[in-house]
């Protein structure tokens, strides 16, 4: 129970890393505002079940990261509850892969809007609450592609690299006020995002790993759990690779 009595905002809870994080947080005693793009019966049922099983509350919140008014409404809803927000995990993201010369500027702006600007907007608001409480942990999900480069992923890797700059600068600005800011850089994880990648390319990645298999969404969520918890009380401004040791 690493997060007993904490309240967390997690985006992108519908599937993949976000879904695993929601589950791990609930199991560790955290209440969650579980953010997703659109309501589904299955998601609502999952939230309800996790809440009951773990004796926490989980509130589904819906908004489109491309719609600033919707984000604002969601934030107001969270703030109106007048509860402390201890943890923010920015997971929701997207990719539009294309080789550099084939990327339209509209596509690149779309990726940055979802992966960077919308997260800054959300984080600005939530960290205001955290600074007031003098306590908080913010976690961004960057990517090893931001650190190493990745063929055909210019928009994605650049937007994830922007999150690294934001992580470090926010840490400099906020750590003295009790708010830690870190990022995880996942490697190749078995999620829907990677299902579209051809098998030979996946096998090529695996060859370059020390741990010769894809990562599980749950393994990324366990590192998020560490950064959210007091186990990482003296860790801030860091980018932690969860990549099976890929070279």
């Amino acid at each position, binding site marked *: 129970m690493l997060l007993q009595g904490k309240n967390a905002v997690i985006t992108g809870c519908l599937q993949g890393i976000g879904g695993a994080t929601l589950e791990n947080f609930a199991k560790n005693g955290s209440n969650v505002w579980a953010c997703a793009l659109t309501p589904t019966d299955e998601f609502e049922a999952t939230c309800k079940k996790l809440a009951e099983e773990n004796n926490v509350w989980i509130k589904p919140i819906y908004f489109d990261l491309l719609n600033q008014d919707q984000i604002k409404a969601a934030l107001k809803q969270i703030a109106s509850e007048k509860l402390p927000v201890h943890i923010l995990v920015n997971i929701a993201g997207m990719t539009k892969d294309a080789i550099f010369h084939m990327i339209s500027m509209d596509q690149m702006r779309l990726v940055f809007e979802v992966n960077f600007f919308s997260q800054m907007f959300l984080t600005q608001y939530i960290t205001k609450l955290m600074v007031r409480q003098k306590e908080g942990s913010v976690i961004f999900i960057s990517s090893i592609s931001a650190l190493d480069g990745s063929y055909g992923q210019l928009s994605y890797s650049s937007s994830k690299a922007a999150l690294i700059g934001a992580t470090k600068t926010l*840490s400099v600005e906020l750590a003295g006020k009790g708010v830690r800011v870190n990022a995880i850089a996942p490697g190749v994880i078995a999620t829907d995002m990677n299902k579209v990648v051809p098998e030979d390319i996946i096998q090529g990645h695996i060859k370059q790993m020390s741990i010769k298999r894809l990562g599980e969404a749950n393994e990324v969520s366990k590192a998020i759990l560490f950064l959210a918890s007091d186990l990482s009380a003296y860790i801030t401004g860091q980018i932690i690779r969860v990549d099976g040791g890929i070279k």
Partner: protein
Amino acid sequence: MMEARLLEGKNAIVTGCARGIGKCIVDTLAQNGANVWACARCKNDEFENTLQALSVKYHVVVKPVYFDLVDKDQMKTAVKLIMSEKKDVDILVNNAGITYNALFQMSTIDKINEVLDVNFVSPFLFTQYIVKLMLRKKSGSIINIASSAGIDGNAGRAIYGASKAALICATKSLAEELGDQGIRANAIAPGITKTDMLASMTVEVINETVMNTDMKRAGETNDIANAVLFLASDLSSYITGQVIRVDGGM
């Protein structure tokens, strides 16, 4: 419902346990359910009493093992003693080390050899022995305590930093060699941490370093021990070859 502890039933070896970070690591690992071979340089009643108390408090077995890192025969004897118990070794924490502050031009050959021997050669050899045991079970987690000085390079820390940089590089090579055999290897790079090692620094330098951290405080030994716990546990199952800074943002 009794909550499952993060290291329930695991067996760990920790070096440098008499005080500071090592002492705290033993406490944290035991608290989380691990049995520990707590290594220290020389026999000490107070140390043994502490270990005994931990065993009782956390229902684990914490035992002292004595050897001097610079004495390779003593090290071998200690390894044999551990092997004779015929238990699995799941976790190795190479924590023991010495500090040394001297300007580059003032570093003496004797000190250069001593610091490299204690901080690099000894943990390297010790790990060679222990990895053999881990390979039998094809699982294990190795954690080397490096230093931010081994990444950044700092004035007066040429040899200390180089010894920790060497340890970091060995960690990465080891991770790559053993990753497909179920053994992970990672390092922790503490920043300024409240231990006896700080006595080697002036108050001005300590204050300046603290003010340079984002968090504006020095780390506690507990902060480092908790990061060790993370890397020792299944929470970090897909993390290998990494150096994690526990430095309050330097």
